[in-house]
């Protein structure tokens, strides 16, 4: 039992404890963490006052893992074991990586997702990303002084299902409770929109280190509605570095270089690129491993020429998003620039020219995504009962199934609002066919070979029938994280199969669970203690929610018997809480959940009626 709390005079006895919630921008080049503190979204710095954590992870021979600035400093010394821009590999196979030949890593091809062989063993991109997230989690715990209740993790809007799943798993592996995956441009729009009380249609142009997103949003009194999104999940500042790097190779007539030298030149290229955002020319000097001296001068004009095609390439998704939203440039009220790479003048010019107005650059392009994510996390965790903010997002890429002849049947078209579900019926094409294989794909092209394969599964046990007689209904459900699950059911017999679409990356569910257990902050705590604590937390949360619901609507929505039944389940759960038995608590949680099923449905109906009644209604004939 909680003790009665006596509050200081002038301090309200807060009925709900403030929960610690964070927003994390897991970027290709930089990652950062933010939180809402006394109503303000703020980025949390490390002990040295730095906000940005370089997304660089080094696996050392002694088994230690170094993340951030120190790893970045070591990248030219130990390129094979120092992973930069790991985000580009999330949910990707070897064949997806265009510049694989220039990368210093020892890749291991694996079905679903590539892996990297390091000095401490084979690592999947999910594990590498988890290392970055762990550092940010620790930073937040230290600076907020407590355990983190939940986190919102941002992903590029144009990330497909495999990339999203991989990100969510990385967060789980880091021991974070993921409240939501949030699209980066949407997060930026929240931070920008709330800051400027913006209303109307806005474009977010987000060019980061490795990804490009463009989203078109309608902002109406706190509702952020995504109308269309597009992008390129393999286009960013890194590509501009590579153009300079190739230019250096050509100018200096260099032979094939060692991994160390390649890394050094890429770093030099990036420095030159960033310098050119403020200056007319950049001097590139360094000494390569065999004593070869590089000393070159790159002018802004040459840099513009080298990268003109990249700049133009970003405009294709912009046009596509406008077309999908059925909008014209004249409908756009402003273009919000996000991502470090939008500091390049040629990008700003191109955007200004296309939209016929200066883009909005009055916010810090590095931080705005994390700030928006923190605002969303604070609301989701229940600290703020904010009825004013609502995000309505979309699916970035069409989802479909392979049909005969390698063609695709689209089930959910791109830019459909989420959550969404769609079903489609299929039939057997052979007499006596008892199984049907289902291949789930994502992409816009008509041929399976041009789209991303997300999952394959089989529906077995269909009773033998004549060709065309079976009715197999395949249902796609995309949840609010943008994650897909698929189920198939033969309607005449009721046989069913269900998959959560998930890329494989060399770790089984059990291995993940083991790693999680091993990595808990409370290392002394054994498995059972942990299970008990989790059950207790969940039970208390449930009791709190049910009490609030009963207080608000119990009298109006429940009969005396119904109420008694729920109250009985409540007291059973309270009883179970007095004993240290996780299983008993779980059982009573399930029982209470079940007892409140009809109540939950009625409450939902009521809130919908109320929302409608607030309107002047046209006459409803049902």
């Amino acid at each position: 039992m909680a003790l009665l709390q006596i509050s200081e005079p002038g301090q309200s006895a807060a009925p709900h404890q403030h929960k610690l919630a964070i927003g994390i921008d897991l970027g290709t080049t930089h990652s950062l963490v933010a939180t809402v503190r006394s109503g303000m979204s703020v980025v949390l710095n490390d002990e040295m006052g730095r906000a940005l954590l370089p997304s660089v992870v080094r696996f050392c021979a002694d088994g230690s893992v170094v993340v951030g600035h120190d790893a970045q400093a070591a990248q030219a010394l130990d390129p094979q074991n120092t992973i930069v821009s790991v985000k580009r590999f999330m949910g990707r196979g070897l064949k997806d990586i265009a510049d694989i030949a220039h990368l210093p890593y020892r890749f291991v091809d694996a079905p679903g997702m590539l892996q990297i062989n390091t000095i401490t063993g084979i690592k999947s991109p999910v594990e590498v990303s988890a290392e970055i997230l762990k550092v940010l989690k620790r930073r937040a715990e230290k600076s907020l002084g407590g355990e983190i209740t939940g986190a919102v993790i941002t992903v590029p809007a144009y990330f497909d299902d495999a990339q999203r799943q991989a990100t969510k798993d990385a967060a789980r592996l880091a021991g974070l409770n993921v409240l939501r995956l949030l699209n980066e441009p949407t997060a930026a729009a929240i931070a920008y929109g709330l800051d400027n009380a913006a209303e109307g249609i806005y474009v977010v142009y987000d060019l980061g280190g490795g990804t490009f997103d463009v989203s078109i949003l309608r902002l109406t009194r706190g509702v952020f509605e995504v109308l269309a999104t597009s992008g390129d999940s393999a286009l960013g500042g890194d590509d501009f570095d590579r153009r300079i790097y190739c230019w250096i190779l050509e100018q200096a007539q260099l032979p094939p270089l060692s991994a160390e030298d390649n890394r050094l030149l890429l770093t030099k290229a990036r420095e030159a690129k960033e310098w050119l955002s403020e200056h007319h020319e950049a001097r590139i000097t360094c000494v390569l491993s065999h004593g070869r001296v590089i000393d070159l001068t790159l002018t802004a004009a040459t840099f513009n020429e080298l990268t003109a095609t990249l700049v133009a390439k970003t405009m294709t998704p912009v046009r596509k998003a406008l077309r999908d939203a059925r909008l014209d440039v004249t409908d756009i009220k402003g273009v919000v620039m996000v991502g470090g790479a939008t500091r390049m003048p040629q990008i700003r010019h191109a955007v200004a020219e296309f939209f016929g107005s200066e883009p909005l650059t009055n916010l810090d392009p590095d931080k705005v995504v994390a700030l928006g994510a923190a605002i969303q996390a604070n609301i989701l965790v229940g600290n703020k009962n904010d009825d004013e903010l609502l995000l309505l997002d979309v699916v970035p890429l069409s989802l479909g199934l392979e049909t005969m002849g390698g063609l695709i049947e689209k089930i959910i078209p791109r830019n459909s609002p989420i959550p969404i579900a769609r079903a489609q019926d299929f039939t057997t094409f052979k007499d006596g066919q008892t199984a049907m294989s289902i291949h789930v794909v994502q992409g816009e092209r008509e041929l399976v070979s041009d789209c991303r394969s997300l999952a394959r599964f089989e529906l077995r046990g269909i009773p033998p029938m004549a060709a065309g007689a079976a009715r197999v209904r395949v249902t796609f459900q995309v949840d609010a994280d943008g994650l897909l699950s698929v189920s198939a059911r033969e309607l005449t017999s009721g046989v069913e199969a269900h998959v959560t679409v998930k890329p494989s990356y060399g770790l089984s569910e059990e291995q993940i669970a083991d790693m999680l257990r091993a990595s808990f902050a409370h290392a002394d705590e054994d498995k059972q203690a942990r299970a008990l604590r989790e059950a207790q937390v969940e039970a208390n949360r449930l009791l709190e929610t049910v009490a609030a619901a009963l207080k608000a609507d119990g009298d109006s929505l429940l009969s005396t018997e119904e109420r008694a039944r729920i109250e009985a389940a409540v007291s059973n759960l309270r009883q179970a809480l007095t004993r240290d038995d996780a299983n008993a608590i779980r059982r009573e949680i399930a029982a209470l959940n079940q007892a409140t099923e009809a109540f939950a449905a009625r409450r939902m109906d009521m809130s919908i009626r109320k929302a409608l009644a607030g309107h002047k209604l046209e006459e409803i004939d049902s």
Partner: protein
Amino acid sequence: MLQQNHFALFGLKPAFEIDTARLDQAYRKLQAEVHPDRYATATAQEKLQSLAWATRINEAYQTLKNPLLRARYLLQLHGFEIHEGANTAMPAEFLMQQMEWREAIEDARHTRNLNTLVALNRELEHEMEALKHALGTALDVRGDYASAAEMVCKLRFLEKVRDEIELALEDLEQ
């Protein structure tokens, strides 16, 4: 209530001509009540309810927002199922024009003529607007569902042509 028809859900009368501003407003208002973000800390039951409702409202909104889907849904409410693919006989004249458009798109693609595509797109837009207008009269005024059904098929044909133009535009822009 989860089974209610799409129009009733948003407090609209079932008709082709609808007040889209009111639809948008009702949509946002309903999502504000049911969206999973509102139930992030709720019980498992409430989360399921919220997912089902938010999904339902998105589906209804998508259907009513799009004129073609709205017309098809309205016909369905009146007992007219439209079977796509079941090759509905189209007037020869209409099919001729289809072919001309398709040829024009292919030509523009080969000669990489963006302007032609943009012009074609505009022409198509006009054609679709006219058809939607006629559809409104057939559905809301005359109650002539048979000819409305034919117009829906025509509209679907035109949308496919528009998809082709947009694909061609995308390819040329790259």
